[in-house]
């Protein structure tokens, strides 16, 4: 607890220091506000209409989290199915791998057409950006389990379900979390881009409005919100990883 408090304090100190450096550098070097406004100006802009930024943050966070959670669940189940059914895996995995190399975000336009300008549409975009890496990494992790360990458990009379939950799934967790960390950033990108196809609230909308108004201060305010959400979400996943994969001390 004390160590966490210390780490939090150090983090806070780092953020305050970074803010001071930002402010100082802009004033000292006379950087034009067109490039980089003073931090205090940006914070003042947020403080002027906190409601819009708070609503945007909440909305985008909801889209990201729903999509990420669904993508994780479906991805893990899908990885399990592929693991158990090699025929299905051989037939579908190549298509999956190829589909990872295509610019899936372009499908965002289609998803928004199908679901309308709803929270759901953005969650679906975040979903499929998370879903692919989680599926592939779940399968990778499950395949990396030593078959002799599974054979040993089986010789002690363990059922396939027991082997799955006691051995294979835990062994696959480090790989799954690699995909989850990737998915955490991808799902946020998906949500933001999804909002560009039309919406009223959200960080993506704030970015777009600021761009159309050519307001650099508002743009930076939205960028700060995006950074806050991205970092917070990533930290949450990393924290969960340390908690759940407590044995993965190699990192």
């Amino acid at each position, binding site marked *: 607890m004390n160590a966490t408090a210390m780490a939090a304090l150090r983090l806070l100190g780092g953020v305050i220091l970074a803010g001071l450096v930002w402010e100082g550098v802009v004033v000292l070097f006379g950087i034009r506000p*067109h490039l980089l406004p003073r931090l205090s100006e940006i914070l003042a802009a947020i403080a002027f209409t906190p409601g819009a930024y708070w609503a945007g943050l909440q909305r985008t966070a909801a889209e990201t989290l729903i999509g990420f959670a669904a993508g994780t669940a479906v991805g893990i189940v899908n990885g399990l199915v592929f693991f158990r059914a090699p025929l299905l895996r051989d037939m579908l995995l190549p298509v999956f791998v190829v589909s990872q190399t295509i610019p899936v975000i372009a499908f965002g*336009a289609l998803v928004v057409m199908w679901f309308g300008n709803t929270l759901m549409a953005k969650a679906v975009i975040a979903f499929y950006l998370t879903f692919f890496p989680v599926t592939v990494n779940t399968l990778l992790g499950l395949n990396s389990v030593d078959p002799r360990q599974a054979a040993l458990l089986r010789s002690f009379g363990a059922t396939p379900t027991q082997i799955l939950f006691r051995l294979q799934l835990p062994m696959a967790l480090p790989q799954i979390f690699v995909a989850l960390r990737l998915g955490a950033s991808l799902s946020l990108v998906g949500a933001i881009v999804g909002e560009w196809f039309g919406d009223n609230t959200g960080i993506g909308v704030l970015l777009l409005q600021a761009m159309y108004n050519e307001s650099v201060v508002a743009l930076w305010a939205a960028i700060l919100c995006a950074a806050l959400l*991205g970092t917070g979400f990533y930290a949450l996943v990393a924290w969960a990883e340390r908690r759940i994969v407590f044995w993965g001390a190699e990192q």
Partner: protein
Amino acid sequence: MSGTSAARGVFGAVLILALWEVTARGFALPAYTLPAVTQILGAVWEHRAALQAAALVTGFEAITGYAIGALAGIGMATLLVLARPLRAGVLPLLLAINSVPVVAWSPLVLLWFGVGVSSKIVMVALAVGFTIFLSALAGFDRVDRRSVDLMRSFGAGRIGIFWRLRLPAALPLIAAGLRVATVRSLIVAIVTEMLGAYGGLGWIIYQSVTLIDFVQVWAAILVASTLSLAFFGAVGALERRFIFWR
């Protein structure tokens, strides 16, 4: 063994395409739900001139930005490894920039560099640069502390250790970063084009969405996917050629 799984893969792909075609045609799905595969291919053929011009624009942006980003990423990682004192100051700044989801920079970069090609190149270079910088840095840091000490005890300098030890150790990770970055370069180019451009696949996609021309959206996505696959395949082939010990 691998022959059968490859055959199954081809079979699966064909099956999906056939299922798609039959579903779209059989249920007479409207184009906004799901156009048939043949319909999309027809649209690609019909608009081939426009799509080819757009693919050239997007491809140019992606490859130019990719080259700049790759050089900058590897260069920056090398610099930070060779000049330790620099690292403490520069790395937190870079990580802070990277903590922003990359697409959130797009509107700002558009304001700074205009609607033309240069803003897309900057965005691609940014995304590719960070991807490769982070994997190169992880690769350079991956070497065993004891190997470094051993080389130093034989009188190797910082540059000697980098050249003989760190770079070979980092190459697989850099190669992986280079591969992932191919896909990212096209995604970022397309996404930035959607916000504002004079041409390119992302611009066509955005235009078609506003015109509610769904088949055209699919056609542009198909071309973008082919471009992305070709780029990915080319970088993968180069990697197999040059990192022969993997």
